[in-house]
């Protein structure tokens, strides 16, 4: 069996990470050799020849000190800038990224596609398409790690974390849980299948089932959200139309961008952020909905936009009849 010495480069970012690696290795090899060879040379050249030998003291060389302070510092600043720039790319999913939801749970990964496909410990994705993962955990901290993509992100209970990648090469890649999560942490592993787009489409249509939005719509009625949240914003609750992506004014000042995290919070802890002009009447659905169902609801709320394209980033929550389309300018 052959020994792999280098991980596969299967994502757009992996190339950049590896380039940084080469730089770091080069610097390290240089300095390591410098030190090793210097020590070796001095040790031989100036070895003690007689027990009573007493060399004359050499004292501080200021220029040297300055040199070996400034040069290393310069080099580290390059390392910092380079690492940081990659990190920024890794942190900002492209807008066109396709959404996948991940729920970590002691010893398993639950993944949900928008189209409704639910997988466990397996993730099928198309190559050449950015994939954005919105992740949370039902219990302890886990970490979503795909070495071939050079991506890793902790999955923290009680909140969402995000990561993204763009597979460049079809194949089957390791998925590891990288944050220690107790017994069988090492069993919380799986595979990522990067497929040609058409194969991916086939795979998707393979098993028929309702999309997340549909499931969400169902829940929205089952959980009686509809009774309060009317699309026209009438009644004591804001309409949820065009909530997603908007900037919500909150009671007691402050605004918040209505992203997945905010909607999740609105469902599980409504009172934490109350929309301006409304009373905290909304009951918490903590315990009544699983993280997966929350995801469905979020997708439904996101789908509630007449024309998603129009008014990309409006402010909502004015005192009078907030939520009514009129109030959204």
């Amino acid at each position, binding site marked *: 069996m052959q020994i792999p010495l280098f991980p596969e480069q299967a994502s757009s970012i992996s190339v950049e990470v590896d380039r940084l690696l080469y730089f770091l290795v080069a610097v390290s090899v240089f300095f390591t050799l410098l030190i090793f060879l210097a020590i070796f040379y001095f040790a031989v050249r100036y070895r003690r020849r007689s027990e009573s030998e007493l060399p004359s003291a050499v004292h501080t060389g200021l220029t040297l000190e300055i040199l070996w302070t400034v040069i290393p510092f310069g080099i580290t600043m390059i390392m910092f800038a380079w690492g940081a720039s990659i990190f920024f790319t890794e942190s900002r999913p492209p807008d066109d990224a396709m959404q996948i939801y991940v729920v970590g749970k002691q010893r398993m990964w639950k993944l949900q596609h928008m189209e409704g496909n639910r997988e466990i410990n397996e993730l099928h994705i198309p190559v050449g398409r950015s994939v954005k993962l919105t992740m949370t955990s039902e219990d302890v901290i886990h970490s979503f790690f795909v070495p071939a993509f050079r991506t890793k992100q902790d999955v923290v209970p009680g909140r969402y*974390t995000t990561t993204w990648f763009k597979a460049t090469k079809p194949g089957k890649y390791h998925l590891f849980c990288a944050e220690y999560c107790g017994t069988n942490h090492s069993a919380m592993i799986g595979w990522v299948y990067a497929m040609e787009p058409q194969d991916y489409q086939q795979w998707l249509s393979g098993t028929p089932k309702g999309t997340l939005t549909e499931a969400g719509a169902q829940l929205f009625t089952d959980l009686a959200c509809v009774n309060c949240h009317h699309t026209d914003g009438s009644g004591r609750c804001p309409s949820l139309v065009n909530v997603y992506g908007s900037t919500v004014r909150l009671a007691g000042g402050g605004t918040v961008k209505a992203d997945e995290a905010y909607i999740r919070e609105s469902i599980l802890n409504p009172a934490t952020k109350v929309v301006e002009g409304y009373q905290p009447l909304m009951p918490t659905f903590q315990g009544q909905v699983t993280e997966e169902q929350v995801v469905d609801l979020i997708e439904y709320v996101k789908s509630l936009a007449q024309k998603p394209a129009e008014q990309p980033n409006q402010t909502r929550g004015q005192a009078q009849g907030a939520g009514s389309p009129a109030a959204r300018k």
Partner: protein
Amino acid sequence: MTPHTSEHIDSTKTYALVLLALLGLTVLTTLVAFVDLGDFSVVVALAIAVTKMLLVALFFMHVRYSTKLTRLVILGGLLWLAILLLLTLSDFFTRNWIGVPGK
């Protein structure tokens, strides 16, 4: 090496006055708490607390007479407390700045 620390003995009067000041400030801060100063209520409350701390430290703990080294130690301690608070907050107050959930 060890500077001779000559004893400074404050009068009972000084201590009594400091005590009165401390009690006064306690009453003050309690009353102010019921006034709506918006965000300033925090500032005021802490400002008063710091004043009280200074009184206790300078007079009761004789920092007024203490060696430079002691003062350095105290300032160091406060500085490190600041490091702990500020750098921790640097995370919590910049969450979601780039508008990606959990970043």
